[in-house]
């Protein structure tokens, strides 16, 4: 196990190096010279050269990359071209925090709703309910987030006038009762993004739960438990459920990836100041350092999530531990 973890960890820096170099080169290959953008009205050769040096943009692409990398390792991702006077790190981390809060809650909902639905479908196997549940979840997955948001906004924000049209005001509002007791209630801004984030995610979790539950139901120990005379509820709760949950560890990474992808549309369409909307704006305004930073951070999260999922899976299920590379 230890050797396996070490080998996987050893790959991490190499993968990240390749990814960051790849992104760096593409970003530099793009049209428009960021130095000219930064210089604005100034046409003085000397000043432009000075900007070039300050931004670390002189020399060939390898020299530039080396300079960027040394800074990035120290957590310095350069200055944002979009937001003058701020470093990318200063802008990026609060935005990641906003997205992370929304993403974590969405992830909890996806698993909290998806697992029971999967178990339900597995129990109803052979009846109309099973294909109905799976089919409806697949349908929800098929609706693009782009299509779902405008009707949701129209219904809840305009027609019913219950929720705000967009924006962000923190996860919770505090309700003070008599100025003493504080009750946190969900902020009205989070409902529509959460619906949009979670609808496409249920299908994956529910279907995996269903498949493993169906397999587990066939196992000898379930028959043994039943033949001992255990009530059906005890069999479901203590034997089928825990054993069906194992493979779900591996889809956490996928589910999170889905939420991160969804963040681009949800945040852009709903005006949430998260990392998805920021990445979109950075691409539109060619803020290279910001694009680089977000891509590298996203990739790090993806690679780490996959690694953690694999390792946790190896701990839970020793059968796959034996150094078999899971590619």
């Amino acid at each position: 196990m230890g050797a396996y973890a070490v080998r996987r960890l050893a790959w991490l820096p190499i993968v990240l190096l390749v990814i960051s170099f790849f992104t760096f080169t593409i970003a530099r290959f793009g049209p428009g010279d960021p130095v000219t953008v930064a210089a604005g009205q100034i046409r003085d050769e000397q000043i432009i050269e000075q900007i070039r040096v300050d931004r670390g943009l002189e020399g060939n692409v390898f020299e530039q990359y080396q300079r960027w990398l040394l800074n990035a390792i120290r957590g310095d991702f350069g200055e944002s071209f979009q937001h003058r006077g701020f470093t990318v790190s200063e802008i990026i981390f609060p935005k990641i925090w906003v997205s992370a809060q929304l993403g974590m809650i969405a992830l909890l909902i996806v698993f909290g709703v998806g697992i029971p639905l999967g178990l339900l479908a597995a129990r109803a196997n052979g009846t109309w309910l099973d294909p109905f549940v799976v089919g409806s979840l697949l349908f929800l997955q098929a609706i693009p987030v782009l299509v779902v948001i405008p009707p949701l906004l129209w219904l809840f924000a305009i027609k019913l006038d219950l929720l705000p049209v967009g924006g962000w005001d923190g996860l919770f509002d505090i309700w003070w009762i008599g100025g003493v007791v504080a009750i946190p209630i969900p902020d009205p801004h989070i409902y529509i993004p959460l619906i949009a984030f979670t609808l496409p995610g249920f299908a994956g979790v529910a279907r995996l739960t269903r498949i493993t539950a169906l397999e587990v139901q066939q196992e000898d120990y379930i028959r043994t438990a039943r033949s001992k005379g255990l009530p059906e509820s005890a069999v479901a709760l203590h034997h089928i459920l825990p054993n069906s949950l194992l493979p779900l560890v591996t889809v956490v990474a996928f589910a999170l990836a889905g939420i991160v992808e969804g963040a681009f549309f949800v945040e852009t369409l709903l005006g949430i100041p998260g990392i998805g909307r920021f990445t979109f704006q950075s691409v539109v305004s060619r803020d290279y350092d910001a694009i680089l930073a977000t891509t590298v951070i996203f990739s790090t999260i993806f690679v780490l999530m996959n690694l953690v999922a694999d390792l946790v899976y190896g701990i839970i299920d020793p059968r796959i531990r034996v150094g078999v590379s899971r590619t």
Partner: protein
Amino acid sequence: MTRDIDSAGDERSSVVGRSEWALVWERLRRKRLAMLSLIVIMIIYGAGLFAPILAPYSYTEQNLDRAVEGSSSDHWLGTDRLGRDLLSRAMYSARTTLIVTAAVVVSGSLIIGNALGLLSGYRGGWIDSVIMRMGDIFASLPGLPMLILINSAFSPRVTEAIRGFEEYTGITGIVSSGFPSYLIVFTALSLFFWVGTARVVRAQVLQLREREFIMAAEALGSSQWRIIFSHVLPNVSFLIVLSISSALGAIAGSEIVLSWFGVGVQPPAASFGAMLFEGSGARTFQSHPNLLLVPGVIVTLLLFSFALLGDALNDAISSR
């Protein structure tokens, strides 16, 4: 792959030799939902394929006197902000989806994914390591921002290069046909969609390599290419079909998303992504719901059908 059990053509026997593909098709045909999805996909793709014949109007034909109308007898699904017929736009968008999915499946999955998977599994060693680690890297790149970045960085340069080619050779109309944006979208997508096929093929090849019939072929002195093409490839063909069927929806979805962001297929060429963009916004939806619903319903139906068909195909093949 044909197993002619009674090649003598004994008509009394109920066991008739059929290829494995025929058996899979038989099983698939019995699933009503799968057949329905196949019909939906064929209708949408058919509309795209024959758009120049079927579409009542040109996708660029504007009529500002009749902008943002609801459905009427001349414009069945209404018109957009520039008075273009939505039905015709939708048909040409389906054409874009058809072109992009077909091109990415052929290049990304069938050619690159297949070749790298076979090579990786059959040769093993450092070739395998290099290819699979490359796959890991592509799989761990955040797809959407990378696609947006690649498209926005390369699009002007490629257009410029093709314009230069036009001037040099005297051929015209390549840039104005929108070809460069299709080329970039499909290259960028192929870059990401080979990994799935390659992994599946490699895993299967690794298992096959240990099987007796491959060893026998090797022992008999068959060349490597002969083994790959006549022994290995037929045995991975089902998996290739499966990986393609599961990728189709993702490919179609990616093109739509890229065009929505404005870095995909460029206007005036039609794309569901661009159509959805025009219809998004709560106020727009309130006053002109058809701007969003026309592309939205078609895209949802298409993606849903891909998912259902892929599932049914998976069942039909795995119960082989």
